[in-house]
C-alpha cells in the first residue's frame, strides 16, 4: 500500500457511500474523502469520509397508467412505494416486478412496465424499464 493506492481506495469508498445514500433518497448527498498519514507509522493511514446528507426525499404521487386501455386500472395499494414514505430505489424495481407479475397472472405475460421518476424541486427525471 502507498499514498496513491490509499487515495484511490478512499475515493472509491466515498463513491460507494454516496451511491448508498442516493438509493435511499438523499439525492443531493456529497461525500468527501480525506486521507492522512499517521505520523508514528508510515504504513498506516487515517481515512475520513465526510458526509453531507442534504434533504431526505420522499415519495410523492404514485400512479400507474395502462397505455392502451383507458378503462384499465391498477391499485397502487399493491405497490411498495407509497406516497409520503421515504424514497427507496429498490422499491421501484420491486413495484415494476409486482405489476408485471399481476398482469402476467391475468394472461398478459408480455406486459412491459416503464418507470418514470420526477424529482419535483428540480424536475429532474429518471426512466427505467423492465421487460
Amino acid at each position, binding site marked *: 500500500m502507498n499514498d496513491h493506492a490509499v487515495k484511490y481506495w478512499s475515493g472509491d469508498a466515498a463513491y460507494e457511500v454516496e451511491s448508498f445514500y442516493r438509493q435511499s*433518497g438523499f439525492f443531493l448527498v456529497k461525500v468527501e474523502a480525506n486521507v492522512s498519514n499517521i505520523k508514528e507509522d508510515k504504513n498506516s493511514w487515517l481515512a475520513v469520509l465526510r458526509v453531507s446528507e442534504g434533504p431526505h*426525499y*420522499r*415519495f*410523492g*404521487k*404514485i*400512479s*400507474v*397508467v*395502462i*397505455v*392502451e*386501455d383507458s378503462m*384499465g386500472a*391498477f391499485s397502487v395499494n399493491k*405497490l411498495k*412505494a407509497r406516497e409520503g414514505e421515504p*424514497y427507496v430505489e429498490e422499491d*421501484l424495481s420491486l*413495484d*415494476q416486478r409486482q*405489476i*408485471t*407479475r399481476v*398482469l*402476467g*397472472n*391475468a*394472461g*398478459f*405475460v*408480455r*406486459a*412491459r*412496465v*416503464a*418507470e*418514470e*421518476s*420526477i*424529482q*419535483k424541486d428540480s424536475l429532474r427525471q429518471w426512466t427505467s424499464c423492465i421487460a
Partner: protein
Amino acid sequence: MDVLYRVNRGRAVVFDTLLVKARRMAPMDSLEGLTRESLLRDLIPYHRGDTLRIDQNDKVIEKLQSTGIFNSVRLEDSTPGAGTGSALILEVEERCRVI
C-alpha cells in the same frame, strides 16, 4: 419524488399448442433427449383456450429444475400471428449422466 409506472400490457395470451424440445448437453447436443416427451407434456397445466399465467409457467420450470437432471429449462410463448393462440415452447437440456 413523483413516480409514474407506464404499462404496455399487450394482448392476453391464450394457449393453443405445446412444442417440446428436449436435447442432451454438448457434445451430444445433436441427439434427442432421453426424457419421454409425454412426461414433459403432462406437466403443462394448460388446455387449448386457457389463458397463460406467469405463476403457472414458473411452477413448471421450478419442478423440472428441482429434479436436478436438466442443465437448463425454458418455457416461452410464441404467437405465430395476430388473433391466433400461443404456441408454448418447452425447451430442456439434459445433464450428461455417467453410468
